[in-house]
């Protein structure tokens, strides 16, 4: 599951964005945390901000919540400028990385906290709290204190507490960061279900690219306070715009070389990793002789003992390392020039590990349309 939406509002120019971040800059002293960033997010999107730590993604989230004021720019939610509104009056709720559950209140009281601030009648609060407890399947834990909950349960209480107020926008800061892998995967799907059911716009911050790929409608890859690429998970993975994005999302083999022009097989690259010209179908929009790069995902590199019956994109090497991963194996192959490439091969046969082994002379090859041409 890579795409959760069937419609893609960002492609439709008639659609009005729900959250409009306009030329926002945030400086802490001399340090620019967010650098003139603009971004449109649409209603009911599950938008991920992805980037290495220190890239400004959490700062951006905290600015949306109102905990940090921006140095320049403005943010509109549903057409309303919220830049000057203090956090307690914003129609936005945030789920903290630490969950920030009030330790002196029961689960029930934690969830009711936000509703009480709205001065709702007691009956309405009780009813809403019950709904929320049911939604996150914690009805039996209503009277517990946060210290008596497991990590996964705390995470669900935090989620219920944010959702109880029916925010226009829900911000999630590394929501699954402190859960173990199994629980994290399960919770990813729960989050998606809840988001679809309640039709709330989610913006999630994560450094976990797999998580971002699984849950998001779109991903914004950030670095040094800037958005490098905003696209669907598939586009980000299959068509990264530069080496940085390609390298950050998943594993990748990159071939550096000189653009030699175009022929019937595609874009020609002369790389020191290959004796002959290598090809990619995608066009390179630069003059001949420029430096360009080919990016190739490990699962798109085919690894065989026999010489493949194709006329291009064949590299010869030796297996250095094998990582057995159950459903697939990862091979590190050393080329003749010493360069190491990574190939992934699904283990269709039960005895796959006997088929290719350490020290084997192998051929790597790819079809031209598997490679991505990168200009920077």
């Amino acid at each position, binding site marked *: 599951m890579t795409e959760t939406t069937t419609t893609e509002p960002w492609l439709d120019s008639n659609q009005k964005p729900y959250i409009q971040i306009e030329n926002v800059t945030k400086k802490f002293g001399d340090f620019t945390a967010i650098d003139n960033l603009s971004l449109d997010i649409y209603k009911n999107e599950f938008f991920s901000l992805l980037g290495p730590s220190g890239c400004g993604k959490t700062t951006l989230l905290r600015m949306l919540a109102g905990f940090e004021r921006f140095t320049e720019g403005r943010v509109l939610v549903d057409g309303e400028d919220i830049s000057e509104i203090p956090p307690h009056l914003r129609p936005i709720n945030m789920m903290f990385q630490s969950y*920030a559950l009030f330790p002196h209140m029961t689960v029930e009281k934690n969830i009711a*906290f936000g509703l009480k*601030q709205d001065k709702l009648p007691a009956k309405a609060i009780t009813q809403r709290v019950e709904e929320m407890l049911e939604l996150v399947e914690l009805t039996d834990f209503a009277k517990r204190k946060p210290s008596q909950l497991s990590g996964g349960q705390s995470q669900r209480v935090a989620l219920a507490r944010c959702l109880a107020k029916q925010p226009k926008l829900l911000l999630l800061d590394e929501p699954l960061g402190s859960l173990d892998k199994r629980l994290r995967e399960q919770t990813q799907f729960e989050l998606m279900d809840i988001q679809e059911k309640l039709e709330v716009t989610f913006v999630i911050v994560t450094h976990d690219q797999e998580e971002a790929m699984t849950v998001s409608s779109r991903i914004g890859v950030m670095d040094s306070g800037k958005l490098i690429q905003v696209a669907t998970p598939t586009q980000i993975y299959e068509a990264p715009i530069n080496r940085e994005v390609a390298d950050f999302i998943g594993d990748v083999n990159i071939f550096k070389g000189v653009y030699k022009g175009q022929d019937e097989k595609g874009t020609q690259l002369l790389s020191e990793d290959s004796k002959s010209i290598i090809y990619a179908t995608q066009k390179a929009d630069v003059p001949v002789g420029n430096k360009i790069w080919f990016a190739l995902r490990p699962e798109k590199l085919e690894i065989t003992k026999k010489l493949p019956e194709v006329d291009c994109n064949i590299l010869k090497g030796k297996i250095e390392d094998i990582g057995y991963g159950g459903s697939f194996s990862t091979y590190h192959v050393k080329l003749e020039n010493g360069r190491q490439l990574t190939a992934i091969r699904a283990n269709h046969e039960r005895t796959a590990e006997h088929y290719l082994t350490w020290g084997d002379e192998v051929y790597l090859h790819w079809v031209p349309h598997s490679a991505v041409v990168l200009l920077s």
Partner: protein
Amino acid sequence: MNIKEIQIPTFLKRIFNGRNTVISMPYLWLLFLFLFPFIIVLKISFAQPILAMPPYTDLLKWGESWWPTIQASFDSYLFIFSDSLYIRAYLSSLKIALISTVLTLIIGYAIAYSVARAPTRWRGILLMIVILPFWTSFLIRVYAWIGILKTKGLLNLALISLGIIDKPLIIMNTDLAVYIGIVYSYLPFMILPLYANLEKMDMNLLEAAADLGCRPFKTFWTVTIPLSLPGILAGCFLVFIPVVGEFVIPDLLGGTRTLMIGKVLWGEFFYNRDWPVASAVAIILLALLVVPIMFYQKSQEKAIS
């Protein structure tokens, strides 16, 4: 060559192992520095005053027979309960302690809160300023307050020269002076536990409250105060318990009408030379304070777990 090992009985080995020795240290400390003096005071409280050195009768009298007879007298206790002065002094001490604890809490909380929220590099300096008065003798600091509060003291001179008042304020030798002295002297005992608590408070909780629509002032009451309760309790007990028995401050700053049990105790010992009554006053004071001390212990245990 025949080396004989010294045989230590196993039960002794079991008693004097390393672990027990370490554990016994605080108990030995308490035994010698608290329990023995306490037993002596308790013993004197059951004696009768005489003109001698020491000025009280022996509890045990060795007579003709080879066992002693006990000469316990409850006169001192009966005397304390028959003279309303003592009961008034106890009640007045508790009242003064309670009011000054509340005042210290309010001022101390404000200071502890601002230190805890100050930029990290400032905190150490600010805390040192809080502790700095401890570098001077307690007695000298209380004396200094006389210079500030007396009729022609610094405070009155300043206020008159600023034209705020025409006649000097009478603060010295009143209960107000006692409160000022107590709050000033005991403030660090309130600030330190409160600071320790507020400093480690998760700021995300306050942000979460704001995020859920809570105004800053209400967040303070519904989140900050409840979460700092262990610090509040620790600070209050650290101030309340010693203030009940406080002697120096009411003696130096208070007037003749300022009634506190510490002053009464002093008077019994040194003016009346009635050690048994003085000891009985001390024993009753201790009995009164056992209740809050137990609450303090409980709250500390809870804070640790």
